[in-house]
């Protein structure tokens, strides 16, 4: 009996890691487990809501004041945004450059963190019912949070950008340098395979480059925390911190699927070893990880 059960478990493991065949079983079992999970999180959420309820009126008034102030401060920029977007679209049309896709999506609430200590994932309250599909990017008010990796009927699972080896193609705002940022698993990110003399400085902002065909370009991802240049290694060690509240609980936005980018030229034509090539490769890996 032992060998039977062990054999089944091991084959489940292999099927899940290598072939991703088990999503149907997972979804079926999730129908049982998610109500239970909601039930077990109910007391904590109740306490939280009670705490919010008893929060003093003064705090709320203060916050309200601050938000009104912030809104007023941002007003000149937001008011001109429409005009700028229209102008941008017109100019792009004049230059016959393809128009930028407007970002759209739906707001989702982070329900809880997945308990698995080996990964960094959160569960949000939108699923197949809300037309969420795996691979969609997730952002919050400050920047990129992660990517939807598994979808269940009513909830879905978001892998955070700080998850180990979660990769996002980015570019540096200051000079447009392209690279791929990888999660380290400890709440930080790393720019890998950047030559030791690459023009990266502390406090550089990294935004999505959009080369992956998944993320729209221009979403802030991370800020460079430290750059270590050691002549003993051919690559610089560049550590970044996410700008979005990746480890916070709150509301996030699941962006709608991006329009399919134009087909890529065949790989044989691309120059071997060019930086674009690397980006392409790491981008190709991702759909395999998150089917």
């Amino acid at each position, binding site marked *: 009996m032992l060998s039977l059960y062990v054999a089944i478990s*091991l084959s489940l493991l292999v099927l899940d890691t290598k072939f991703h065949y088990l999503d149907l079983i997972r979804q079926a079992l999730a129908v049982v*487990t998610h109500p239970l999970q909601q039930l077990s999180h109910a007391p904590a959420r109740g306490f939280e809501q009670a705490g919010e309820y008893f929060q003093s009126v003064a705090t709320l008034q203060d916050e309200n004041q601050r938000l009104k102030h912030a809104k007023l401060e941002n007003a000149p920029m937001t008011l001109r945004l429409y005009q700028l977007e229209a102008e941008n679209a017109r100019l792009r049309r004049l230059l016959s450059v393809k128009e930028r896709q407007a970002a759209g999506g739906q707001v989702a609430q982070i329900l809880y963190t997945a308990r698995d200590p*080996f990964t960094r994932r959160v569960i949000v309250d939108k699923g197949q019912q809300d037309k969420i599909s795996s691979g969609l990017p997730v952002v919050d008010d400050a920047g990129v949070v992660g990517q939807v990796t598994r979808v269940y009927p009513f909830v879905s699972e978001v892998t955070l950008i700080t998850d180990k080896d979660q990769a996002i193609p980015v570019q540096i705002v200051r000079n447009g340098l392209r690279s791929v940022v990888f999660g380290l698993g400890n709440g930080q990110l790393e720019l890998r395979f950047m030559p030791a003399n690459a023009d990266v400085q502390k406090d550089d902002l990294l935004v999505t480059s959009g080369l992956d065909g998944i993320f729209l370009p221009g979403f802030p991802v991370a800020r460079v925390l430290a750059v270590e240049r050691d002549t003993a290694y051919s690559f610089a060690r560049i550590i970044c911190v996410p700008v979005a509240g990746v480890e916070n609980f709150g509301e996030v936005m699941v962006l709608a699927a991006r329009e399919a980018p134009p087909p890529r030229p065949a790989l044989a034509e691309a120059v071997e070893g060019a930086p674009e090539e690397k980006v392409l490769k790491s981008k190709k890996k991702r759909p395999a990880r998150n089917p």
Partner: protein
Amino acid sequence: MQTTFSSSRILLPVRPWFIALSLVVALLLNMLPTAWWPGVPDWLALVLCFWCVREFRKVGMGWAFLFGLIMDVADASLMGQHTLAYVLLAYGAGALSRRVLWFPLLQQALQILPLLYIVPLVQFSIGMATGGQFPGFGYFIWPLVAALLWAPLTFMLLLPQHQPVERDANRPI
């Protein structure tokens, strides 16, 4: 059956629904947000281990497999991660049950401890082998806490099987 084989107290037979209920409650406890704190035991592993030792004829690897699958989905971990760990734990507990129950509770806990360590070690090796991140040493504390809880848990889970203390002349046992 007795509390331990060496005690003279005779217990009522266990009710199957109580086993199922205790396992479901353990599952719920596992899903609480407290599960993130270091040192909070894997309740399901502990209760499963308890029933595998106490009732090796009723609870075994099948239950472990089923609850392992549920835990895998609930935890969003790899399919088979909890399953394999729980199945091995259930096998070990079943194999140990004939011997462990002869000991007093504290010594039982001492023997259960290495058994419980199967769970985090198996999960850790699977997590590392598939490229997960290191969860920190806090991850390996819970079996110690769980072993300390063995005696209170035994008392609690055997409560429904205790008989009334007053003697009844018309009852055979």
